[in-house]
């Protein structure tokens, strides 16, 4: 009657394997690092195809591909390598500029400019990304990062030019204003969700539009609009409220340091605080949270307030760090980009920080690529989308590269399940 016990795992054999072969074995398994790396690679490959098919000159060389394939291949290779080299040079460093700096023919500003640009773009995205990620962890789908960031811009900007305070204090007040503004804009959908059950997806979308319209109105009002200008542009923020930055051509400012600090804060909040415990419980199992005595509604409200505050801080960094004034589009797309950054960062605080930096790098490099090779920034959008798709579908990457099995964290495992 007894069947054999399942064969025991053969421990000794494992020890025999050299460290190197073990390393290689693990490298080619579907672990998070490998999948992420391969996702980026795959995205770049598809992007390369897009670059080639959309360039008429290079495409022309393909018309006689069979006669002389070398033409087509060289032309494609030239274009692709130049585009991606630009992406690198614009995002990290340009070897030429660095060696010029060492030779004394160039300056350090030029050499550091790519990194500075990357971090400049990354800073507000860290905040909006954290906003989305935090809400996701609590089971809410905050599409409203954009509106919250816009309001954060508004309140931080107005605090920046409308009140006079000594340096330092003024900055703190302006940042706080941004935080509070965003928090207020997050509070509304949170409250509606908790009290009436109104779906946060609808309310936050609607509040995005509302915020943008409000900004459009506000900057034309007396006291806000720059009296010397006829355009829709506000007064300039007092230098006392500006985020400290590196000297002129470099744009990187204190916002990125703040972003790292806030990331640490959010990581602490999620993992080590009572509120984090609550929001994680509510995020994965609201009925159990309720049964254990937590107030799901209150958690939703708090969560949206904090998420809104984070996005508002993102807006504030944008205004106090890079923009200096309010305009219609001062917030750019930082709220929506934050959605993607959060997804890329798997809704983990530090993951979000790195995703934002990656994203900032793509933006900075994309600018150079556009200026130099004339490939439009939309390519960067495509790359970003593809990277997230592949990371989100590890099974796909695994199948393409025939990777070995491994435990892969699936993207968004702790995410709002459907509606």
């Amino acid at each position, binding site marked *: 009657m007894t069947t054999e016990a399942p064969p025991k795992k053969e421990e000794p054999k494992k020890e025999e394997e050299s460290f190197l072969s073990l390393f290689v074995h693990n490298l080619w398994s579907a672990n998070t690092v490998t999948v992420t790396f391969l996702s980026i690679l795959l995205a770049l490959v598809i992007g390369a195809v897009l670059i080639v098919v959309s*360039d008429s000159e290079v495409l022309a060389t393909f018309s006689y591909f069979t006669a002389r394939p070398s033409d087509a291949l060289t032309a494609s290779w030239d274009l692709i390598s130049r585009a991606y080299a630009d992406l690198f040079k614009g995002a990290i460093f340009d070897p030429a500029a660095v060696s010029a700096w060492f030779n004394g023919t160039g300056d350090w500003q030029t050499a550091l400019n790519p990194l500075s640009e990357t971090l400049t773009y990354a800073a507000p995205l860290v905040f909006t990304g954290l906003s989305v990620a935090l809400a996701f962890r609590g089971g809410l789908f905050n599409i409203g990062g954009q509106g919250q960031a816009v309001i954060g811009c508004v309140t931080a900007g107005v605090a920046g030019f409308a009140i006079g305070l000594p340096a330092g204090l003024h900055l703190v007040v302006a940042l706080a204003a941004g935080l509070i503004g965003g928090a207020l804009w997050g509070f509304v959908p949170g409250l*509606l969700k908790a009290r*009436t059950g109104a779906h946060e997806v*609808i309310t936050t979308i609607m509040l995005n*539009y509302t915020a943008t319209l409000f900004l459009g109105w506000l900057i034309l009002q007396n006291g806000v609009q720059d009296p010397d200008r006829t355009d829709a542009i506000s007064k300039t923020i007092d230098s006392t409220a500006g985020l400290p930055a590196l000297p002129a051509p470099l744009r990187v400012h204190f916002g990125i340091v703040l972003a790292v600090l806030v990331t640490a804060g959010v990581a602490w909040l999620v993992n080590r605080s009572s509120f984090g415990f609550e929001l994680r419980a509510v995020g994965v199992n609201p009925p159990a949270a309720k049964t254990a005595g937590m107030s799901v509604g209150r958690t939703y409200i708090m969560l949206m307030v904090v998420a809104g505050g984070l996005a508002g801080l993102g807006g504030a960094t944008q205004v106090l760090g890079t923009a200096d004034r309010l305009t219609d589009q001062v917030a750019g797309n930082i709220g929506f980009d934050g959605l993607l950054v959060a997804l890329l960062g798997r809704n983990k605080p530090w993951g979000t920080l790195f995703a934002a930096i990656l994203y900032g790098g793509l933006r900075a490099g994309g600018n150079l690529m556009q200026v130099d090779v004339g490939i439009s920034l939309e390519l960067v959008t495509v790359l970003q989308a593809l990277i*997230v798709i592949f990371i989100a*579908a590890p099974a796909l990457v695994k199948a393409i590269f025939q990777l070995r099995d491994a435990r892969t964290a699936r993207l968004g495992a702790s995410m709002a399940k459907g509606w």
Partner: protein
Amino acid sequence: MSTATVDDLTEATAPDRFWNRQRRLGAALVIIGLIAAVIFGSLAESATARFTISEDAEGAALSINGQFGAILFGIVTVAAGGALLAGVAKRWQTLLLCLGIVTFVFSFLCWQVAGKFLPLVDTLSGSLELALPLILGALAGVLCERSGVVNVAIEGQFLMGAFGAALVGTLATSVWAGLISAVVGGVIIASLLAVLAIRFLVDQVVVGIVLNLLALGITGFLYERLMQPDALKYNSPPRLPEWRIPGLADIPVIGPVLFETNLLVWLALILVVVIHLGLTRTRWGLRTRAVGEHPTAADTVGIRVRGLRYMNVLLGGVVAGAGGAYFTLVSTGAFNKNMTAGAGFIALAALIFGRWTPFGALGAALFFGFAQKLANYLSAVGSPVPNQFLNMLPYLATIIAVAGLVGRVRAPAADGVPYVKS
């Protein structure tokens, strides 16, 4: 030995909670009714408000003294609210609620239109046209989500549809080829959604967001590199013609709105009915709903859960793609980067607002279209309210409606949950 069975629960005699939903809504109606009667009434000019029936400014009109109308309709709102407060039979409740809201809007209109006129035909057809892409988008959502696949990618499907219609419509110089390509464009995004969500089990909300971005990137990229340099060759599609059905088009108000319009409007309206009947009356609908509510139950009676989901997501792609054609073949004759400008998200809101039903989606889309058209009207007749605030009207109205009237909505139970078998 006598035995006794317990009475049925229906005979239980406990007091109902006084401030139930009905009474709260009633109280709200009374309050806004009072606002309407007092504030709108006192602000309104005592001049005739004309709601013109004919297509131009002159001609037949429903006329009412603006002040009188504002007060009258306000009082009706109060009455409707009062009836709800007093407690009426269940079947009257929805009717009274609708009446209250409609009369409130009328009161507002009387105030605004006093001394002016509001052309009904233009208001209605404008609302319908603004609602058109939303209807199609929300219907696409209905198809996907009733079978259990969340579709956040409506925006992306719109964009691909619009792009496909413009590109192929121009190259083939045929509006029909354009329409078909729009559908193909929608289906491309839908099939990515289907494969990633159903086969690779990726979180459906994530896929949706990312597909929107992908569509934005690809259409924007190709637009920059292909269409923009040579718009005449790649980006000047023919337009969808307007057709007039003789006879029917002569019916006052309704005629010009419904029977003198383009094919897409009819398609959308017919689809609302077809999808409604399909979902409620056919085998496909029964199975779709089963798969969206309880896929395991459907599986145990031999229904191919994933197959049906694939089919519905692709059908959704067809409908959303057609919605995309609106942007390039109806609204304007050229593609532009990100030209859908968030309409897909509003369609998503309409889907949820409309409680995942075709008629609900239609109603929500029309509501949104009407609010936007009303904002247009008010700014055109020179409302003192700043333009930006008028433009907020549709968004704020949606928030209020969703929070106040719709409340907790129930999605199909398995919406967004992939079906996995061991």
